[in-house]
């Protein structure tokens, strides 16, 4: 379709095919009548296909690019901003000029080699290195001591499991960084009121860094490789309230991901939309859980069709500390929350099929997906289209993080985008002289 030609060319170029043959279907196929579709295919698309088979496209000459430490520009603060805006190296906000001096301060906070290649990030297929993590960290307004976290974030998105190449897909998802470990307090992260608002430097600048890095090194820019139709913008870092976790004897989010309780861990996953922040209440834990099902569970069912089609869905539920305390009083844990949500949030197959069709998904059969091992048996208890099936594919795929205002009862659900951006967790590696560095740096 016309709107995807730019992305097609850019993606092909980054895979080494500079003059790929793209045959344009003019317009949007899903919006056309049968007659319009027939006319467009026979009069335009077929000609474009024949052209692609029989003629070579033009090869555009590429220009040499600078080395990592080359000075590409010198000027005043305003002049640097203009230069970065012109080259599309910024997110529209002012950046801190990435000078060699500033970058070196960041590099003091890691023992990883400057030129270490962390990964190659699609769609633009550029190398993610320790050096350019520091460059973008400077630009985003991070502090040098955030460098170990920045590196772990990039370790996560460079992991092939994360599928960074899908970050420019139509739904316009945005990654979220969940943080666990003593580093939360060491670096002054907010994990209470307004946890998901901009304001605290640590939460905000690291969230901004990730989006800037996806733009500059993965090459995700709106209109070309980023086809998020409406899109959303960067999420600030979400730290868990580990004081409450310890008080309740609950498993932290990172422990549920397989790490030790005192590890510093980042988890990065996609968020395609969020639910209302719902106030829960009642005399019993189950009263709170019922409301979570009715509000958050219902919200999470919006994209059930595509989640089931791909057999993947890793939603994140942020639970208020006060609600967590209430639920824990009855001896319940995070596992109980997950199990309750899983068991009680269902939708009819008929409803799911209707959503699938409207979303442009091809027809699919749940029982076939069970047979192919993509979905669990619960999705084919019968072939009755009126039957109810779980919205959450597996209870252990539901992430629960305790965070937010401890003085209120608000919880919120974050819907993850099926196989795109599943949760990937990485331990934060601190330099051996971390405590000393922190002390001397913060004393400045």
């Amino acid at each position, binding site marked *: 379709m016309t709107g995807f030609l730019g992305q097609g060319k850019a993606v092909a170029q980054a895979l080494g*095919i500079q003059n790929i043959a793209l045959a344009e279907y003019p317009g949007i196929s899903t919006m056309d009548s049968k007659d319009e579709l027939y006319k467009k295919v026979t009069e335009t698309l077929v000609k474009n296909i024949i052209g692609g088979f029989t003629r070579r496209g033009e090869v555009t000459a590429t220009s040499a690019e*600078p080395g*990592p430490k080359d000075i590409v520009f010198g000027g005043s603060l305003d002049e640097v901003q203009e230069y970065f805006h012109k080259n599309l*190296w910024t997110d529209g906000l002012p950046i801190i000029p990435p000078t060699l001096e500033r970058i070196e301060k960041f590099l003091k906070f890691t023992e990883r080699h400057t030129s270490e290649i962390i990964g190659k990030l699609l769609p633009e297929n550029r190398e993610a290195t320790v050096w350019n993590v520091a460059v*973008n960290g400077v630009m985003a307004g991070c502090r040098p001591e955030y460098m170990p976290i920045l590196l772990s974030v990039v370790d996560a998105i460079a992991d092939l499991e994360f599928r960074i190449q899908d970050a420019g897909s139509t739904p316009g998802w945005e990654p979220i960084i969940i943080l666990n470990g003593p580093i939360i307090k060491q670096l002054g992260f907010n994990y209470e009121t307004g946890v998901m608002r901009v304001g605290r430097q640590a939460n905000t600048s690291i969230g901004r860094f990730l989006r800037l890095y996806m733009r500059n090194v993965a090459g995700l820019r709106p209109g070309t490789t980023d086809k998020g139709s409406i899109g959303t913008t960067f999420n600030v870092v979400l730290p868990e309230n580990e004081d409450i976790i310890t008080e309740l004897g609950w498993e932290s989010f990172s422990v549920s991901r397989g790490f030790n309780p005192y590890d510093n861990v980042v988890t990065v996953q996609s968020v395609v939309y969020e639910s209302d922040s719902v106030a829960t209440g009642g005399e019993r834990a189950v009263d709170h859980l019922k409301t979570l099902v009715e509000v958050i569970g219902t919200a999470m069912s919006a994209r059930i069709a595509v989640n089931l089609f791909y057999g993947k869905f890793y939603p994140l539920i942020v639970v208020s500390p006060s609600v967590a305390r209430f639920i824990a009083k009855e001896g319940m844990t995070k596992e109980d929350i997950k199990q309750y949500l899983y068991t009680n949030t269902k939708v009819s197959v008929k409803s799911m099929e209707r959503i699938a069709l409207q979303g442009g*998904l091809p027809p699919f059969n749940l029982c076939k997906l069970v047979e192919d091992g993509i979905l669990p048996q619960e999705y084919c208890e019968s072939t009755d289209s009126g039957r109810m099936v779980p919205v959450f594919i597996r209870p252990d795929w539901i992430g629960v993080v305790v965070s937010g205002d401890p003085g209120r009862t608000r919880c919120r659900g974050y819907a993850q985008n099926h196989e795109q951006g599943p949760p990937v967790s990485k331990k934060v590696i601190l330099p051996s002289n971390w405590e000393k560095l922190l002390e001397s740096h913060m004393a400045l």
Partner: protein
Amino acid sequence: MKEVGYEVVWPLGKLAYRMMELKPRISDLNGKTICELSDYGFRGEEIFPIIRQSLRKIYPDIKFVEYNKFPNTHASDEAQVIKNLPELLRGNGCDAVISGVGG
């Protein structure tokens, strides 16, 4: 007071791909085998048959291996499908491929 100047580096990373040469183009599609790959979306199931019908009018000896003979290129096992594709395409004698629908 004179404003401070900044000497800055660029924030991108080194390009990690090598340019590939496209295979020679096909001057005549008669006698050629065209394979279809589909992501099973965006009305490909309507579009592909029309393409076949139209191309057959122009190239009567053209052959097709239809998209349902190949796996979905955009499903949950996409990575494995893509990995196996070269062998699959060669095995089906494909001279050229139409892959769609991009959207």
